[in-house]
């Protein structure tokens, strides 16, 4: 297995030659990606100008500049594009630096991402009253179940805010809190998905009865079912990790079931006949033939499932009025119009999803190579 096959690219050259080959190929693989990303970012910057025109003109008007139409009330019904065309200078100068822009510019999101992950966290070493501004609010909190009074809408930030893993301003901290139910839900969902697929492949009754329900389960909007799951679990005293994981599992079992049903049925009729000539039991055929053959299908569905599990965990945070996690960041951001925070949380979620899928891809490549299913 350690041999490089003769027709592999770079097989006939030494290590330095292989690096040189890779370097020579680099421009061809990287150039198209860079081009597309650059085009998207450019489009985004251009879009910021009309999207943020209302605020830009308001700021310009307050600064004493001439704008048309002259007052905010007159401008209300006018589209962003017309405003930007009528006042190009004002619209352009104010588009990219607003505190609460309708559409934040990419560099603002990157700065926020940097500040809330690797960079110095705001709030540390600030005066008490300044820190209050950064307090994470509790949105949509229902009234106190006993007294009926509204509960506190804010919670003090941690005293120890220097650490990016514990500070509530840290996106790493929130991503970690969302990651736990994601992974647990993914594990539960995958196990359930595989079990269902095994049942479906081996039992005609399950094939006819389970599949329609599995499909029906995915047609129900998860936003409708998530609060119910949270409430039902809460009523029996279970809170926190498990209910969120169940929502994750609910989303992630389905791709695994569908993929594995196909995978477990992938062995050729001749392979199955061979097992039959040895009088192998169904269990034996499952372990020695069906499961190994299904692995490429399993990995493909696991990659879909883990991304779905992350979405499930984020959605699981919304109806609880959670104060922590990526979902809470999204909700708090939208409640207070903190668009930069929303976008950075979105990008944070996308980065986490990409890392999870990339990890699975690495495991997939190593496993399939080891199994001789991919070379």
């Amino acid at each position: 297995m350690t041999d490089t096959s003769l027709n592999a690219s770079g097989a006939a050259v030494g290590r330095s030659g292989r690096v040189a080959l890779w370097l020579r190929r680099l421009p061809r693989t990287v150039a198209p990606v860079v081009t597309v990303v650059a085009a998207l970012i450019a489009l985004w910057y251009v879009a910021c100008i009309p999207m943020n025109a209302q605020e830009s003109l308001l700021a310009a008007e307050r600064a004493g500049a001439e704008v048309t139409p002259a007052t905010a009330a007159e401008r209300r019904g006018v589209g962003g594009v017309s405003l930007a065309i009528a006042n190009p200078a004002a619209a352009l100068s104010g588009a990219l630096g607003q505190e609460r822009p309708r559409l934040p510019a990419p560099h603002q999101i990157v700065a926020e991402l940097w500040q809330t992950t690797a960079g110095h966290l705001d709030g540390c070493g600030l005066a008490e009253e300044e820190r209050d501004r950064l307090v994470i609010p509790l949105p949509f909190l229902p009234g106190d179940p006993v007294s009926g009074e509204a509960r506190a809408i804010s919670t003090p930030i941690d005293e120890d805010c220097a650490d990016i893993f514990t500070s509530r301003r840290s996106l790493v901290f929130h991503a970690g809190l969302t990651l736990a139910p994601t992974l647990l839900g993914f594990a539960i969902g995958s196990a359930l998905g595989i079990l269902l697929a095994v049942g479906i492949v081996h039992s005609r009754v399950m094939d006819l009865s389970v599949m329609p329900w599995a499909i029906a389960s995915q047609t129900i909007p998860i936003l409708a079912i998530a609060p119910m799951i949270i409430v039902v679990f809460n009523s029996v005293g279970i809170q926190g990790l498990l209910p969120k994981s169940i929502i994750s599992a609910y989303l992630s079992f389905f791709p695994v079931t569908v993929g594995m049903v196909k995978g477990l049925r992938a062995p050729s009729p001749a392979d199955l006949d061979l097992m039959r000539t040895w009088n192998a039991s169904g269990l034996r055929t499952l372990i020695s033939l069906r499961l190994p053959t299904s692995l490429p299908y399993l990995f493909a569905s696991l990659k879909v499932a883990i991304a779905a599990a992350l979405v499930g965990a984020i959605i699981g945070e919304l109806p609880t009025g959670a104060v922590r996690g990526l979902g809470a960041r999204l909700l708090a951001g939208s409640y207070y119009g903190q668009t930069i925070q929303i976008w950075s949380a979105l990008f944070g979620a996308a980065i986490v999803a990409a890392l999870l899928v990339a990890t699975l891809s690495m495991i997939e490549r190593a496993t399939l190579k080891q199994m001789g299913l991919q070379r």
Partner: protein
Amino acid sequence: MTTISAQSLDLTFQTADGPVHALRDVSLNVAPGEFVSFIGPSGCGKTTFLRCVAALETPTGGTLQVNGMTPDEARRARAYGYVFQAAGLYPWRTIGKNVSLPLEIMGYDRAERIERMHRVLELVELDQFANKYPWQLSGGMQQRASIARALAFDADILLMDEPFGALDEIVRDRLNEELLDLWARTQKTILFVTHSIPEAVYLSTKIVVMSPRPGRITDVIDSPLPRDRPLDIRDTPEFLEIAHRVREGLREGMEAA
């Protein structure tokens, strides 16, 4: 004493286009230690007959006995090894592990599995390749490994469904020679499906000529050739005479249909 005994076997598949008579009134007796080839055009039922013996298909009429049992009982008793046209080795197992898979399934212990695996790999001259993976072997070597796998558990019948059909002429010649050698040493009863007249005549003690629509036996030829056959026996008049008779049988079958 017969190893395989078929009496007026019928097998009809019900398809959307109406019934297909895969086998009609097939009667055949095979004695222990015989090498029987089945030859005929596609659709003549030669593979179907083999699958009936292996209990992979169930005849719709007639009687079929394998080692004095029903085919399904014989399958449960692991009376036969089956070699398909595709080697069917699992890419995630080494050659050695592929060969010992049936032994694992049949519950042989580890020491015996290893001992038998080496013994049968030696029989097909693949002993040095036990730790290689299937994709590291040529097509001919893969097919030899699949024959070793069929031999591993001491079934006294070997069912071979065009095992060399996908190989080139040169490799096929060598494997034919090795198969005869193997047959002489192991004393197995071999049922062998083929498209090739020289292959059938060279290998067999009995040649069963079949023809399609409905699948039936048109001729059974007992070969007068000695058991010990060098490759150049194929140039002798006896060999050519049998080959001629097989060809005639095939032609008559096609004309009657």
